[in-house]
């Protein structure tokens, strides 16, 4: 177990290094970063000044070292447009994205897991059909289009939810709770995850149903309820941990469309703005930051997975 953890941490560190190298090369190989970072009609002198200021005339290896060692201690460079450290801008927007991703994940779990459980326990039933439809909807409806439809129905026609923006409700001392402004974006964002959870829960329930220990439990005369909640759900929950981890990473980094549509002041919106402003220093910082976040979440999910399932032996 300790060896597994150790090798998994080493692997994550290598991945982080790979991400830094990739982002660095991406910005260099696709042209002159200086001309990317200034406005389209800058004079050659202006570009040269930026090159000098950013140290782009140094050897590549020196530049990479500067970039990587900065990133490790949280220095992601300056936003060209805002003239502020990129990390400050990111941290300012992070709470909104985390709120959206969390509510989204919560909603999709509340709908997806019970539906998958019902479908898996009664193959061919109406629940099974519903689960299949839910899985298909999750996989085929583009979230950006769903967002538009939700706005049209619930904001414009029924006037239940606000069309855009984020409001929070401060209880006290800086602790803020989400308000109903998060509901529509969270539904639009979470529909894919909901579909995934329905599918995975259903198929792992179907698999577990045929295990010997379930037959034993049945022959002991345990009620269906106890078998499903006590035995099947608990065993199905283990693989779900890593799926939920991956999905949380997806929700954190995948909200660019939804945040733009709902003017949600999060990271995705910041990225879209940065691209619109051609602020590639900020784009680079966001790419590195979200990659680090996703890699960390995946690592945590794997650790939780290893802790939750004592049957799994991780050697070598």
């Amino acid at each position, binding site marked *: 177990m300790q060896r597994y953890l150790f090798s998994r941490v080493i692997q994550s560190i*290598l*991945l982080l290094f*790979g*991400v830094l190298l*990739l982002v660095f090369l*991406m*910005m260099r190989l*696709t*042209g002159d970063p200086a001309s*990317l970072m200034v406005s389209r009609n800058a004079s050659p002198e202006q570009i040269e000044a930026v090159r000098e200021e950013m140290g782009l005339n140094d050897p590549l290896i020196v530049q990479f070292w500067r970039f990587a060692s900065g990133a490790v201690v949280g220095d992601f460079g300056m936003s060209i447009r805002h003239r502020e450290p990129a990390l400050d801008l990111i941290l300012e927007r992070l709470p909104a994205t985390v709120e959206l991703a969390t509510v989204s994940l919560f909603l999709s779990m509340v709908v997806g897991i019970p539906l998958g459980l019902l479908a898996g326990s009664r*193959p061919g039933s109406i629940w099974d059909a519903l689960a299949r439809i839910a899985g*298909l909807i999750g*996989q*085929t*409806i*583009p979230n*950006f*289009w769903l967002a*538009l*439809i939700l*706005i*049209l129905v619930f904001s*414009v026609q029924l006037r239940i939810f606000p069309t855009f923006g984020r409001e929070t409700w401060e209880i006290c001392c800086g602790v803020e709770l989400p308000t109903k402004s998060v509901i529509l974006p969270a539904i639009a964002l979470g529909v894919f995850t909901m579909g995934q959870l329905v599918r995975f829960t259903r*198929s792992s329930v*179907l*698999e577990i149903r045929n295990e010997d220990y379930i037959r034993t439990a049945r022959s002991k005369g345990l009620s269906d309820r106890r078998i499903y909640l006590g035995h099947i759900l608990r065993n199905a929950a283990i693989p779900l941990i890593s799926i939920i981890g991956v999905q949380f*990473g*997806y929700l*954190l*980094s*995948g909200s*660019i*469309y939804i945040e*733009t*549509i709902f003017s949600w002041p999060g990271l995705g919106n910041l*990225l*879209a703005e940065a*691209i619109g402003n051609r602020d*590639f220093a900020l*784009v*680079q910082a*966001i*790419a590195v930051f*979200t*990659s680090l976040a*996703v*890699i960390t979440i*995946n690592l945590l999910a794997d650790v939780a997975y290893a802790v939750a399932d004592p049957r799994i032996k991780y050697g070598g």
Partner: protein
Amino acid sequence: MTQTTGSSAVTTMELDRDVGFTRRVNHAGRLLWRDKSGLIGLIMFLSVVFAAVFAPVITPYDPLKQNLREAKMPPAWREGGDWSHILGTDNLGRDVYTRIIYGSRVSLTVGFFGVLIATSLGMILGLIAGYNGGKADALIMGFVNLILSLPYLVVVVTVAAILGRSLLNVILIFGVTDLAIFARITRGEVLRMRESDFIKSAVSVGSGTSRILFRHITPNLVGPLVTIVTFEMSAMIFYEAGLGFLGLSVPPTVPSWGNMLASGRQYLTIYPWIAIFPGLAIVYTGLAMNLLGDWLRDALDPRSRRVKK
């Protein structure tokens, strides 16, 4: 003597495999007939292909021709609509139905060539990694895991913003970023097959590496990969529309579903049909490919059939 037995063993084995393949195809055909949702998916998908190929025959209008006098006309069944523009017109008076028909060309082109590049590159990398092992494997899989651990959307959006709007760029971005999943599956299958009897006997009768890879291993990859192909193609169509929605896909003049959504979004509350119908086209295509993919998985992978019941 040994030589003869050896080659005859190989022939029988290949024969076995061919019989297995025809049987699988027949089986797939029967399943398609029985599993109506797969059949529906196939018909839906073919209708999209038909629309893309015969666009000029299907619709009398030019997707680019603006006609401000007929701008913002609602769909035919709504008040003020007219059957000459079934799905209405957009803010510049272009026929929405026509643009959707022509938009399928962009989506299918991106999906087809994107998947083609991703599959070929991924298969080559997966074959090398799985068959050679060692350093090549470590290097390739390190790269593959790196791609898979990146936040996909952030990377795609960033690269698209750097490279600029063009059809070729979009295809290349999807082709390269999507190779990881194909490489990983190919490698897994190769590792599994390398230990199987039919590869071992092929090795023992002296078949060369390339013969083993291309005559024995590659044909057996078709089953596992073809399902992924359909799902990935539908994902690419989805992501292309998403990039278009952000103004990062094909140039704005090209009729594509994503570009239509992007321009329709501004008029959402007053002229909602401009954005609703291209979205429905994406849903329709995605549904087709997913129904098709689900059926292919059940038909070609005996394991999932057992689980599914």
